[in-house]
């Protein structure tokens, strides 16, 4: 019987390999997991969304109602009438490196929200339901 050749891979080396894997797993958490400095991306995006919503909420309407937001949220008709103007206005207000979506009770304008990027959000209640603004980096 020449079984000696089979036993050469030492069990202690295998154990050590498994042990090193565990230790490296812990190490990787430290390598990737610490927060970076600077204002957080989400905080900045939330601020942009909040600002866009505040500006719209304080702007005069194109036709009726008290403010621009109240106007677009008022009815299907007024939303359809204002949707192009609303999209243009939000596009002008926000910096060029941002994409946006605005949802009113009667429909939404803007781009489709990405599922894999940080998105800032702001909600403004109006008399006819909430208006939500999402922004993200283009």
């Amino acid at each position, binding site marked *: 019987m020449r079984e000696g050749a089979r036993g050469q891979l030492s069990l*202690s080396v295998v154990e*050590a390999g498994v042990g090193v894997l565990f*230790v*490296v797993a812990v190490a990787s958490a430290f390598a990737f997991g610490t*927060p970076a400095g600077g204002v957080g991306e989400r905080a900045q995006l939330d601020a942009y969304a909040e600002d866009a919503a505040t500006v719209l909420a*304080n702007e005069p309407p194109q036709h009726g109602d008290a*403010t621009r937001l109240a106007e677009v949220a008022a009815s299907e008709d007024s939303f359809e009438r204002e949707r192009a103007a609303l999209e243009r206005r939000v596009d002008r*207000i926000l910096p060029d490196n941002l994409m946006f979506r605005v949802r009113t009770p009667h429909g939404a304008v803007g781009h489709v929200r990405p599922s894999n990027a940080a998105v800032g959000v702001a909600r403004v209640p109006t008399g006819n339901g909430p208006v939500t603004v999402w922004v993200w980096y283009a």
Partner: protein
Amino acid sequence: MTRAQANLPALAIALLLVVASVAATVGLAGSAFAGADTDPAEDRLAASTADRLVAADGPLSVRANVLSEAAVANASERLEGVLPADAAVRVTLDGEPILERGDPAGGATMRRVVLVADAGQRALTPTFESGATVTLPRRTGGATLTFRDGADVTAVRANDRVVLHDEAGLDGAYDVELSRYDTVTLAFATESEPAPGSVTVSYRAETTTKAVLGVTVDA
């Protein structure tokens, strides 16, 4: 015999591997903890200062997120006592610094979207060609009405609300408060046809431009 002997260097190598990787991990963890900013004062200061500047009652504000151009031109005086003490601060509007204290190298920057409003006075003298009414631009918060001698206007209504009334005839200049949420039509009540040019309406007109306000704090 030969098999058992081969295990001793293997054990030594195994221990060496584990000890080396543990040492590397502890070193990595140590530097991560040392480098982590557990108290990001700069971020908080930049975010809260920017919040303060765009608030409706902020030092430069006309309304929420609307800054007054005159106040921005005078920023260094207006912002005294608002900016965080003992930190280098830079406030920019569309990239142009409007205020710099200290020399912030790096630090945290918070950006906000604002409108800059330039308020100017405009006057119009209605000719009363189609009735004794004048419609002001929407969002006019107030107006000054000046009546010339012999204007013979006894009352002025703003959207059916009487704002001025004098049976003997209005004379001189009057300030009237108007609703910012309606488009206001002023109607002049006179004995006869109002004479063109007998009334001057001056009101505050505001033009806004968009800008990005940046607050950099280096604590």
